[in-house]
Structures are given as structure tokens and as C-alpha cells.
């Protein structure tokens, strides 16, 4: 589809138009953090950085009721939870986060076991991206098959070209949002593509592509003794990670009625693998750290065809002890 053009000053007008038929979310600064917030006329956007919280939360909330039940175990009645059906447009999604959804789709939209709760939210949400012209200090998307102007997972891509945005409709749903914008010239397109090249060149590179094969033979490697040592065993990295998607299922019940709930969970916790018998197959921090790295850079590539990291750098920023996944990638890359 041909590139469109939008003068920057006309952005609120366009968001206003979208908000007539959908809930519009856009990044805004609130309580010293930039996160998605409901957009309303006059709202100030913060498009200078990615959101602190990852996009997954919109589709895979931290805690979600799956269904309700009444009765006892012999005679239970199940009822679905009322879902929010509001059409949603998210503006300002960074290509790394959009890609994280494309990866989560491989898990939750697998046709053998489709997750209806996730699917419903995906279907009612349109993602409007904003290309990254300048990587932040912990960005490394190009090392994990991403791109600062990447389009995977997006319905529309905006590129900031100065006084205007180059707007690329990518899907039918995207076309419906921006179809009426005027067509952009070849010059606009050239400017956008030069900006993409510049951003790619600025991005540091780490040898992540060698990890999937290499790790296959490294389960017992001594490197794990070192990598995990400073890890405190919290889940800041996993919970702020746009692709970590493990959850625990529990019942929240009062006598004869309750809900089945799923909550985020993390392989960094010993409880994650604790069996009912009391046995725990992963008792040490070393085993748990190995699991997290293996899942992202070996198991997910083998099972789902891609590295489960989009290089957003959130884990680098939030780790309380500065465990830096980029250093981990380099260290494993250097193993002979």
C-alpha cells in the first residue's frame, strides 16, 4: 500500500477521529513513567521513548478471570466471564513491542490450542506503530531479528520525518484508519527510509543469532555457574518482558462459588516448578536462570521458530543488580 502523509499538527485531529468509534490508547507520561493511557482531546503524548510497561499486558493481563463457577465438584456450573468488547486503537507502538505480539501469537493463537481470552483482545485491537529513529541506550532489536522501523505485528506504521509523519498502512484494518490521508511523495518515502538506515546503523550488535544452535549443546556448560550468580531471583525482568508469557492457574473461591484465574508467573521463582509431591526439579538459581535463557534463545526458536526476545532492553533497565542480557548474549556467543 502506498505511503500516506500526515502533518504532525494534525495528529490530535486524527486520534480524535479514531476515538469516535474506538478507545484510543497512546503513550503518556504519568507518575514519572511513560505508559499507555486512554487518549482524550488535549492529552499530551510522550513519543520520545518506549512505554515502561510492555504491550503484552493489554492482551495478557497480570491477573485474569478465565471463567466463573458455582456448586461443588460433583455438580459444578461454569459460566463465562463478561469480556470487554470495546474496539481499541493503540497509537505509538514501537516495532519491538509489535513484534513481541507476533511472537506471543505463536503461543496463544496456535491453532491446536487457541487461547480465546487472548484472541478476543487481539481481534478488537488495532496497532498503530511508530518507527524508532534513535535507539535508546539499552535497545538491541537488530540483534534479534527486529528492525527499528519493522512492521511485523502492526496494522499501520508511522515514521517521524520532521514536520510530518510518513504513514504506511499495512493491513486492511490499518487502511481503514488512515486511508483518507493524502498520498505521500517519493521524497517522503526516501526520507523515512534514510531514517531507518540511520537507526539501524546506530544500533549496537550482539551475536544472538548463534545462540539457538549453540545452546543446544550447552545445558551442562560451566557458564551458568557464573551468569546466575548475582541474580536475586525476582521477576522484574520477566514481568516487564514483552515476550515472557508464563502463568499460573488458581481458583479464587468462597465455599460454593468462585473464579478460575490465571496470574503471571515466572521461571525465576522456585514455586514455579514445585510439584504437589514436594519435589522441585529446579532448586537452584543457576537452574532457573538457565531455564530463562534457554527458553528465550533455544527452546522457543526450536518450538516456535524465533528467538523469544525482541531487544526492547526493558530487562536491562529494570534488573536491580544490572544483569544485562546483552552481556549474557555476548558471553555465550564467545564460548568456543
Amino acid at each position, binding site marked *: 500500500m502506498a505511503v500516506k502523509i500526515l502533518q504532525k499538527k494534525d495528529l490530535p485531529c486524527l486520534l480524535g477521529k479514531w476515538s469516535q468509534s474506538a478507545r484510543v490508547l497512546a503513550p503518556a507520561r504519568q507518575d*514519572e513513567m511513560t505508559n499507555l493511557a486512554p487518549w482524550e482531546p488535549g492529552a499530551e503524548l510522550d513519543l520520545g521513548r518506549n512505554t515502561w510497561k510492555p504491550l503484552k499486558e493489554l492482551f495478557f493481563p497480570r491477573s485474569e478471570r478465565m471463567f466463573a463457577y458455582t456448586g461443588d465438584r460433583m455438580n459444578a456450573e461454569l459460566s463465562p466471564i463478561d469480556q470487554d468488547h470495546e474496539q481499541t486503537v493503540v497509537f505509538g507502538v514501537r516495532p519491538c513491542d509489535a513484534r513481541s505480539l507476533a511472537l506471543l501469537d505463536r503461543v496463544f493463537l496456535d491453532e491446536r490450542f487457541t487461547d480465546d481470552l487472548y484472541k478476543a483482545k487481539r481481534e478488537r485491537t488495532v496497532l498503530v506503530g511508530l518507527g524508532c529513529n534513535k535507539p535508546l541506550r539499552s535497545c538491541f532489536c537488530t540483534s534479534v531479528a527486529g528492525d527499528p522501523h519493522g512492521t511485523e505485528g502492526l496494522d499501520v506504521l508511522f515514521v517521524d520525518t520532521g514536520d510530518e509523519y510518513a504513514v504506511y498502512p499495512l493491513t486492511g484494518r490499518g487502511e481503514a484508519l488512515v486511508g483518507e490521508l493524502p498520498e505521500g511523495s517519493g521524497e517522503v518515502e526516501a526520507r523515512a527510509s534514510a531514517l531507518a538506515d540511520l537507526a539501524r546503523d546506530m544500533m549496537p550488535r550482539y551475536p544472538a543469532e548463534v545462540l539457538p544452535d549453540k545452546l543446544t549443546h550447552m545445558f551442562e556448560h560451566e557458564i551458568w555457574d557464573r551468569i546466575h550468580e548475582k541474580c*536475586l531471583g525476582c521477576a522484574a525482568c520477566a*514481568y516487564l518482558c514483552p515476550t515472557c508469557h508464563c502463568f*499460573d492457574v488458581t481458583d479464587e473461591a468462597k465455599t460454593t462459588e468462585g473464579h478460575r484465574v490465571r496470574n503471571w508467573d515466572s521461571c525465576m521463582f522456585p514455586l514455579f516448578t514445585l510439584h504437589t509431591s514436594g519435589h522441585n526439579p529446579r532448586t537452584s538459581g543457576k537452574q532457573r536462570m538457565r531455564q530463562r535463557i534457554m527458553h528465550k534463545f533455544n527452546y522457543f526458536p526450536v518450538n516456535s521458530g524465533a528467538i523469544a526476545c525482541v531487544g526492547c532492553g526493558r530487562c*536491562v533497565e529494570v534488573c536491580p543488580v544490572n544483569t544485562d542480557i546483552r552481556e549474557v548474549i555476548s558471553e555465550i556467543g564467545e564460548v568456543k
Partner: protein
Amino acid sequence: MEELRRVIREMLAGGKVDLVIAYAKGSLPLRSTPVFIRNAEDAECAVFDATCENNLSTYLPRYAGKRLAVVAKGCDARSVQEYLRERQLDPGNVVVIGVPCQGVIGRDRLSRRLSGKEITGAEMDGDTVRVRGDGWEETLQLFEVLHPSCETCEVKEAPGAAIKLGEAAAAQVAEPFALVDDMERLTPDERWAYFTAQFEKCIRCYACRQACPGCYCKECFVDRSAPRWVGGTDDPSDTAIFHIIRALHLAGRCVDCGACVKACPMGVDLRALNKKLERDVRELFGFTAGLEHEGKQVLSTFRADDPNDFIK
């Protein structure tokens, strides 16, 4: 710095200890990272400055039976004293290397001061912090961006340190319990609104608990599944219970190192609650945690002549 490295080198070369837990330069501007040094020649990576925010004592109980040394600020050394009091460490196996602390940088405070601008480079020079980013540069004084725990720190010298490197500088710059006074001036509703706002930010990643030297239970009450004391949902009462009980478990034990606040990825700050408990324990029992390691833990003692009837 040279002296610190020399001490570490000599300890390892002389076979006095098996492992030194220290700080090394981190991968982001103004960040340090814990490092585990086992060979004398690796001592060169050790650093100490106002970026060394982690409380390294948290790692000590992991190495039972090993002869350990730990680089410790005043607050970190107080944690070691509490570990010893609570019989979590063998006093013969731990050497505290006290470092001269002027307080550490509060990253949240620095970020606020810079209106959230991204720092891409920085240098420290004594009390001066020079930071820069995309098209800007600023020079700040350390006291402007101190972590709130450091502002009210009463114990800059590391208690129980076998080795002291230089004099700890900078006296406290704020009243230790000003935060509690401020809280107590609020109405109960206002206070509850404040704490509720903190709980609401929590995502239950347990970074606070994992970073806290006082949180070393083999099984945390929130992780217990039979019986299950607290749910894992985002129900506000579940989150509140976690934080309130954690604070109560730390009454008379918390040394206000601020590790919980520094570790939190969501900006949850419950120091007001910890400080209130700290002051209550001081006023009621005349006890301050971490100053030495002799004697019982204050809330585990019982006196037959206790003035309160309810306790008899």
C-alpha cells in the same frame, strides 16, 4: 579504590577468604553491579562510589560454610550484624570490608530531576555527578540526588567492620523520621490513600523481597500453597497484605538500606511504613537494628516483668 583492590587482592592471595563479594562497574551509566571475586588477580574490577546501591550482604547466606568477605556501606554492614544476631551467618566466616560512604545516588530522584531524560553517559568526581544525554549535559551535586534512605542515614560507618577503608563522610541531611512525622500529620483516610497508591503500582515481581537482606525465609508466606494465606491476583487486598506483612516481619530488623525501593521496577516506596516501625521499636524498646550483633532480636524477647499486661 586502589586500597580496596589491594585489600581484596591480599585477602584472596593470603587464603584468608574463599570469596569476596564486591561491586564492579555496571553496563549502564551510573550503575554498578555485584561481582564475586575468587582470584586475587580479579581484584582489579572492584570499584566503590555513589553508584554502589546494592546491599551485597543479601548474598552472604547463600555461601554457608565458605569464608567470605563483603564490601559494605554502613547500612549493608548493619544487615550483616542482623544476620549474625539471627544466627544466619557464622561470625568466624565473614569479614566486613567497610567502605567510606557518602550516600548513593537515588536513580528515581535523579530521573525526576532530569525530567525523565535518558542518561547516556556520566562521570563521578568526588561529590560531583556529570550526566549527559542526547544534546544535553548537566552537572549536579551528589546531595541533590541522594537516595532518600541515604538522606536520613544515621550510621555511615560500617559496624563490625574488620577493615575500614577511609572515613565515612557527609552527615545526614534530613531528620531520620521526618517522613513518619509527615505521614502522621495526615488523616487516616489520606494515609490509606497514599499506601493504596503504592500498592496499586505493585506487579508482585517480589524484587523488594528478593533484594531485602531481612527477607530470607525458606518459604515466604505468599508462596505457601497449603494453606494459601494470600492470593496471587491483582486484587488490592492481596497486594496490600503482602506488603504490610512483609513490613511487620521486618519490624526491629529493617536497617533502612533502601534495597526494596531501589529494586522495585514500578516505583513502589513503602519506606514510610518501615520507618514508622523502626521509630516505634526505638521508642518502645530502645533498640536500633544492626548496630551490633550481640543480644536477642527485639521482638523475640520476653520479660516476666513486662509492664504490659497483655503480654503476660
